[in-house]
């Protein structure tokens, strides 16, 4: 396989993996539910995005034709991820979960 392609594929996968890792670290380190919600949204955008770009490039090169199935993964992820994050946040507010004391503002009463 051409070295340049190999290098690019590795770079994309590494970038994706690093951001997925940072997202997971955030999940562990951050202190309340709302803050933790931010970790997975990162992992699901750049983390998956990078990995998928690498995969797309690899298989397009191997098959000598543009493979676009991966684009579908990104598309469906981008449609569904915000909805689940929204529902999680709503559920958290409904149950009145604890927030970090220095959080500015707060959920409204409805």
């Amino acid at each position, binding site marked *: 396989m051409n070295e340049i392609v190999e290098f690019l594929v590795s770079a994309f996968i590494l970038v994706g993996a690093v951001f997925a890792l940072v997202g997971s670290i*955030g999940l562990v380190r*951050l202190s309340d539910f709302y803050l933790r919600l*931010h970790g997975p949204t*990162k992992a699901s955008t750049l983390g998956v995005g990078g990995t998928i770009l690498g995969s797309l490039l690899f298989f397009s090169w191997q098959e000598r034709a543009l493979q676009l199935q991966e684009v579908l993964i990104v598309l469906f992820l981008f*449609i569904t991820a915000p909805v689940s*994050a929204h529902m999680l946040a709503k559920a958290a507010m409904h149950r009145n979960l604890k927030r970090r004391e220095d959080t500015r*503002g707060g*959920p409204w009463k409805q």
Partner: protein
Amino acid sequence: MSRVLPFPLLSLFLWATWMLLNGFSWGHALLGLVLAVVLPLGTQSFWPNVPRLRNFPKLVRFVLVVHWDILTANMAVAILILGPPRRLRPGFVELPLDLTDEFAITLLASTISLTPGTVSADVSEDRRTLLIHALDVDDQDAMIRQIKQRYERPLKEIFEC
């Protein structure tokens, strides 16, 4: 035309999805075409009034801007997460909405959630305010202004609502 294809863009999207999933062949092209016509017809009553797309180039521009923001915001948030957690200034921010259409509001809320550092948490019952949780807020008003200018205004122009 509108009787057979109530949502032409949705039909196109379904057909393209089918072709991408199955690889190109004439059989699948035909089957995909049937599905692209039947599925929107069958689910028609579940859809809210989707506004007409008025400005396609603006939509492309919007998608590019969002992708760029996801990229840059990811770096910024990664640094925030790896830094000392005490330095974060989390907060709930209320964003007054100019958009009135439900579909456009959904797109705005999704965009806000996709860009790292902000998650849209709730919409007020009168659909006039969006509650956002942010990881690190320096200046609430600046943040609101930025979201309005970068995401809400283009969406307003794209759908003209």
